[in-house]
């Protein structure tokens, strides 16, 4: 197994862990964190694929996507936290589960 495959695999494991956490954890903040962990996995995968056995310089396109992606992920997270706060102020709850659907 070469180096980039090791890092890619680590990214995939992170993605799967985040996916599992996203499904089972009812608290909104934990869901936001899970999505961030999934994003971290995707970033790790992209950057390791860009840098596989390169000669002059690593593939700049995934790097550029990642660079903007990190900042966008940060902003999206902050926006999600703003939404979560709004949900808390309006409903007094911060968890998403079956009981929420009861009118």
């Amino acid at each position: 197994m070469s180096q980039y495959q090791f890092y890619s695999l680590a990214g995939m494991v992170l993605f799967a862990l985040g996916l599992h956490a996203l499904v089972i954890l009812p608290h909104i903040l934990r869901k936001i964190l899970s999505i961030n962990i999934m994003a971290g996995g995707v970033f790790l995968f992209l950057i390791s694929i860009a840098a596989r056995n390169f000669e002059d310089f690593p593939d700049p396109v995934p790097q550029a996507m990642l660079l903007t992606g990190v900042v966008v992920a940060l902003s999206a997270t902050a926006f999600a936290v703003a939404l979560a706060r709004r949900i808390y102020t309006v409903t007094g709850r911060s968890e998403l589960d079956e009981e929420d659907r009861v009118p």
Partner: protein
Amino acid sequence: MDSTTECIKKPLSVLSALFAAVVCVFLAVALREIPDEPGGLTAAAAAEIPRSGVEHPVTAVLLNFRVYDTWLEVGVLLMAAMGMLLFQRRSDLRDIRLMPSPEPVLHWLVRLLFPMLVLVSGYLLWMGKFAAGGAFQAGVVLGSGGVLLWLAGHPSLTNFPGRLFRSLLIVGFLSFLLASIANMAFGQAILAFPPAYAGTIILILEAAATLSIAATVSALIIGLQPVVRDRDRAPIHVPSD
């Protein structure tokens, strides 16, 4: 074991773990399909760099080859900032609650560090031409300077004019828009910069994007604070040296 862990349903948890494991295995199998030799768009990027106006491949991709993508990502940042301001029912940062700052040392340190952050940010912006750097890195460093000011309870944040703050939020998106309109006015394709002027255009776009990213990042982090009414506002106190 806390309350959140207790209320997880056991069957759902097992099912979801299985699903995640299957996804991971499929991804790992797909990884074997990726060719080992370097490929992608490295060669295409290398061939076009001399005409891009910058020397660093990542900056060339970001601000020239795929500038449309970057433009829309600056738009996403603007939308996130607008959404947050909408939810908080505010149009600027003039009514945020500043952290109380009992520590004169912290105050002094921030007054020392903030100008250095501005300097580092400017250097990162300039460095984008020939090394790893550019608008996003510079913008985040500058934005973290804004967060630092807030953490230290520096009153310059609440005195920042609202109109200027809103202008900073949109200047990045607007400059990309103006660049594309100007390009079309001169008979070029929408974001195909002429190689002779590409370097200058990219520097202007990057500087504008840096300001917008800095304003967005600091606003998104600081703006979540609750609103204070004027009479609750902590008295502004700047210790002299």
